[in-house]
């Protein structure tokens, strides 16, 4: 934990300019094409950072190539002899680069990020949110996807039975096998949801091509809704599998 540099990081960013602060030539987005100097970071979203439209189908190998190329310009190791202001920009730019790459290369994180850009607050289904709800006594909203209702109900009954068995020290291999089978089915469903999500990506990208202007259209709102639904179902299944594992391993 450094103490001295705490407030140093967020200095006001100089006004957006089209010429390099150092040599005056027209600059590229993150570093100057003429003199190579790192430029002050502009507050942009991750897609814009990579010069990409906010589309969900993207080539990860191309993204990786761009990531490596930008790293070779922006990384603090390669700017260690620059002035302190430039070093600071290098630190900020390269953390922005890393954050953007980490988010965009992962299909789920990329979708979540785009949804957040579109103003969607995703239902927190993370384990920490669950723990937090448990610790504070809040009742956490758990929307059971309708198509899973029956399955989940049965599975929960079986899990409860297994918990009791374990408490009593009884063994029921048939029950464990049955639960294991259901777990495999859930895991398969979990995987298939990614494919379903990808079909909505294509719809989203097409809608964007049709009407590139920002702002919502009915079309887009509907696609967003479908993607949110897939993500929620996916999270729900993930939590369920985690619960099953917890009981099986207990």
């Amino acid at each position, binding site marked *: 934990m450094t103490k001295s540099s705490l407030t140093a990081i967020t200095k006001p960013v100089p006004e957006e300019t089209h010429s390099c602060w150092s040599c005056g030539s027209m600059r590229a987005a993150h570093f100057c094409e003429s003199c190579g100097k790192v430029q002050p970071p502009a507050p942009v979203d991750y897609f814009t950072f990579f010069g990409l439209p906010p589309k969900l189908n993207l080539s990860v190998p191309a993204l990786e190539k761009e990531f490596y190329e930008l790293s070779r310009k922006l990384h603090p190791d390669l700017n260690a002899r620059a002035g302190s202001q430039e070093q600071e920009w290098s630190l900020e730019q390269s*953390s922005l680069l890393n954050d953007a790459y980490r988010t965009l290369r992962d299909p789920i994180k990329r979708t979540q990020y785009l949804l957040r850009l579109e103003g969607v607050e995703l239902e927190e289904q993370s384990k920490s949110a669950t723990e937090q709800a448990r*610790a504070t006594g809040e009742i956490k909203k758990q929307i059971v996807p309708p198509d899973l209702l029956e399955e989940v109900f049965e599975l929960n009954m079986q899990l409860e039975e297994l918990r009791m068995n374990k408490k009593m020290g009884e063994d029921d291999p048939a029950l464990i096998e049955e639960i294991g089978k259901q777990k495999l089915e859930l895991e398969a469903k979990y995987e298939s949801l990614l494919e379903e999500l990808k079909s909505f990506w294509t719809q989203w990208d097409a809608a964007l091509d049709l009407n590139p202007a920002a702002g919502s259209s009915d079309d887009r709102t509907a696609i967003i809704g479908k993607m949110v639904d897939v993500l929620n179902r996916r999270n729900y299944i993930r939590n369920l599998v985690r619960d099953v594992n917890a009981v099986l391993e207990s």
Partner: protein
Amino acid sequence: MNEERIVGIDLGTTNSLVAFMQGAVPVVIPGEDGLNLVPSVVALDENNQAIIGNVARKNLIETPERAVYSIKRLMGRGVEDVQDELRLFPFRLAEDLQPGEVLRITLGDKTFTPPEISALILRQLKRNAERFFGAPVTKAVITVPAYFNDAQRQATKDAGRIAGLEVLRLVNEPTAASLAYGLDEKQNGIVAVYDLGGGTFDISILKLHDGIFEVIATNGDTHLGGDDIDNLLITIALDDIRGDLSLDLRRNAEAVQAIRKAMIDAKITLSSQPSVNLNIELPQGKRYRREITREQYEQLIQPIIDRTVGPCKQALKDANLKPEQIDEVVLVGGSTRIPKVRALVKELFHREPHTDLNPDEVVALGAAVQANILGGGSEATENMLLLDVTPLSLGIEVAGGVTDKIILRNSTIPASATQFYTTQIDGQANVAIHVLQGERELAADCRSLARFDLKGIPPMAAGIPRVEVKFLIDANGILHVSAREQRSGKEAEIQVQPSYGLTDEQVEGMILDSFDNAEEDFRKRQVIEARNEAATILAALEKGKKSAAWGQLTTDEKKQIAKMEKALAAVNAEDDYQAIRKAIDALNQGTTRLAELMMDGAVSSALKGKNMDETDLGEGPTPPHPMAPPEFQ
């Protein structure tokens, strides 16, 4: 003065090294004793002067209460998390230690924090480098275990500053090692680095791509290494001795250190021999005799080396890779010399590991490569770039004592995350934030990094302020925090209460060699060292004059020597170290024949049955030649 050299330092649990790039090759800089490894042992002599390295090792046995080793184990840790160490290591914590205070270790009648002790080791390495270059050294890259947390990293950085070094970068040890390997073998692929050192274990998995070294996943245990094997063997020996010889030596620090030394030797022997015979002298004229076979030894250490399996599997899982997908495995750290460890690695990764580079030196060599990159690079390092990750997730405590992870482990650094905070009561001006590091769900199970107070939030109704807090992990793996209240645009003041570690002011007060005086300090020290060398050679010459060899010199030769001796004595009174060294060199040259004659005399008198002492070669700083030319040029 030419461009300042940046050195690479491996500050190890057991041994430390300093290296630099000589042209296209990284090389280790030896100490005055000609040895590359500087044992990480610090002792105080009777005048409370610090002695470091090989010379301090005998103090460990003779005056154990004035010596300390394996201090790295205590870096960045609090009194409550070193209880295990205290049972196994003879660390003497200061008696007046207050809760929450940085640890202090007692050496004789003085106390030192772990960063101060590490700084003494660093200063020794700095001096070795300065002696080698003949110029001051103030900038360094220092390696740390990949799995070191924020506090341990900060403590290492503080140690550098105390030693008068600007730490340009902290590099993870396994990553540094991969840089050293990468210099020779420019290739693409997936590499696993298995680093089992004296006190720490790391596993890192990297993707090599046209000179970019991208760490994909890392894991480890910052308290697992050769030390643990030593302690196990010592415990067994002490139990044996108590049972068989009715001698309880557990409180006898001298005896424990003697046993420790014997056990380390036995451990090393067992890496190449099928068995070892222990025969250790004990107090009360007793002896501890025992044979340990390789088989017994391997059974004993199995549980220790098995502790590396979990982290390896986790790293593979995090990297989303199967063992078959690893192209190369590299071994780093002295403990990887143990055949059983090599067998384990082979089993884990389904391939024969690389051992081309000396596992004790490869980390320092890699640090030198990184130092070269930071210094602007050279032809050899032109395309090289290291992209490392943070080993532990960063989180903040939220309601109910739960950790909300905001930067996940294995994120490429620098990395950042932004969180928004608001107030709970009208006009509230402060918000408290608790920052944590670790993988556990509950805050209490994670490592507390610091508590922040966001201060000076403009008075507003509850829930209205929107304070943006930015957490940024820099390329050293160290956290920075900044905050801004968005509605007013006002920068919120942050007050940090580091949970473990020194404040800036404390570090300032501990600095051994101030940066401003680096040049002056360096000059003064050179004068002292040059005078010491002059004294040594003059003393050797006096002895030479009394030897039979002196009579074999011609009158002219004697005259020349006398002239040079006088010249040395004259400059020795001045403060010009370069002049002193020049005179030493001259005298050395002039006495080569005398030295040779003395050597011949020594050999022939030894043949006649006289021993070497009677012939008296004198005691030079670098045996066996009493007038060996100083390494310094």
